[in-house]
């Protein structure tokens, strides 16, 4: 009786020991695998760093080239003299300025979609110009009317745009359009001074934000304009 219990107990003890040894081996193996994995990850990251260094220098070269070409076009428009001497001066000057400040003009702009962006910009420009014109009529009316019905107030809203270029575009077009001035931007929150209640309401519908997001191709939201485009294409297909 006691012997069988003893045998069972030793069996159990052996079992536990075996299991523990297996666990330990597995742990050891997995840790070894982990270290090798981390090493390979490290190597891969190093390779990627090297690659991105190459990419960065290529990007710098591209920025340099584009900046100097743009500046040379600007020089030709400014100079309006087409003899060899002045063109040579122009090439020297644009290369010099591109060397001095090639990282300023295109520091964080993706250039791949420039054509789409330009097309959308020219498509959206008449709307913006119309808005600016109506804004000026509004201000002129307010300034010239004898009672001067202004009711200024500060409104604040959080934008969903992300890149700083589109923030700047939004802020400058807010400043230019009906009765509103961008006073401050703090961490994506716009403080806007509005001349009366109606324009504050107009701004809060967010149409301008959508348009700018559409022009500058901000990712990951759906824009009204895109939906309209798709609907038009669908209708044409039908």
């Amino acid at each position, binding site marked *: 009786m006691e012997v069988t219990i003893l045998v069972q107990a030793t069996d159990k003890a052996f079992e536990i020991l075996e299991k523990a040894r297996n666990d330990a081996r597995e742990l050891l193996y997995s840790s070894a695998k982990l270290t090798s994995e981390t090493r390979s990850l490290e190597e891969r990251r190093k390779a990627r760093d090297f690659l991105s260094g190459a990419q960065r220098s290529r990007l710098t070269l591209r920025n340099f080239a584009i900046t100097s070409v743009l500046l040379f076009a600007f020089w030709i428009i400014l100079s*309006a003299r087409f003899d060899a001497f002045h063109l040579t001066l122009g090439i020297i000057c644009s290369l010099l300025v591109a060397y001095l400040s090639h990282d300023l003009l295109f520091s964080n702009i993706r250039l791949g979609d420039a054509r789409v962006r330009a097309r959308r910009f020219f498509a959206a420009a008449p709307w913006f110009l119309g808005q600016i014109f109506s804004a000026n009529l509004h201000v002129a009316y307010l300034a010239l009317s004898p009672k001067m019905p202004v009711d200024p107030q500060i409104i604040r809203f959080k934008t969903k745009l992300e890149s700083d270029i589109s923030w700047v575009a939004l802020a400058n077009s807010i400043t230019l359009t009906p009765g509103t001035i961008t006073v401050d931007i703090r961490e994506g929150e716009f403080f806007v*001074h509005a001349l009366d209640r109606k324009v504050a309401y107009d701004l809060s519908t967010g149409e301008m934000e959508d348009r700018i997001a559409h022009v500058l191709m901000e990712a990951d939201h759906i824009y009204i304009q895109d939906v309209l485009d798709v609907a038009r294409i669908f209708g044409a297909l039908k």
Partner: protein
Amino acid sequence: MDLQQIVSIPFLLVGFFFFLAATIGLLRFPDFFCRLHATGKGDTMAVLLSLIGLSVYEGFSLTGLKLIFIAVFMFLAQPTATHAISRAAMRCGQEPWIKGKAKTQ
């Protein structure tokens, strides 16, 4: 009087009208921020219209293109300058005037 001159005159006159409105706004509005509305918007539009009128008068040449460049520059620079002043005013603790309050400034 050829066609270019006839086209350019209305642009210049409308631009002058906006200049006038901006100046009167600058003089009449009750507080600093409202005055900025007048100068920031009115002057930009007026300069744009005047430059378009002048470049139409000049005709299609490199000088006209330069005028367009000045217009683009003003379009970038004027809202930025307005924003800079208004931000400075906000940081300096200027309270915007609200309807019903006594006119201080």
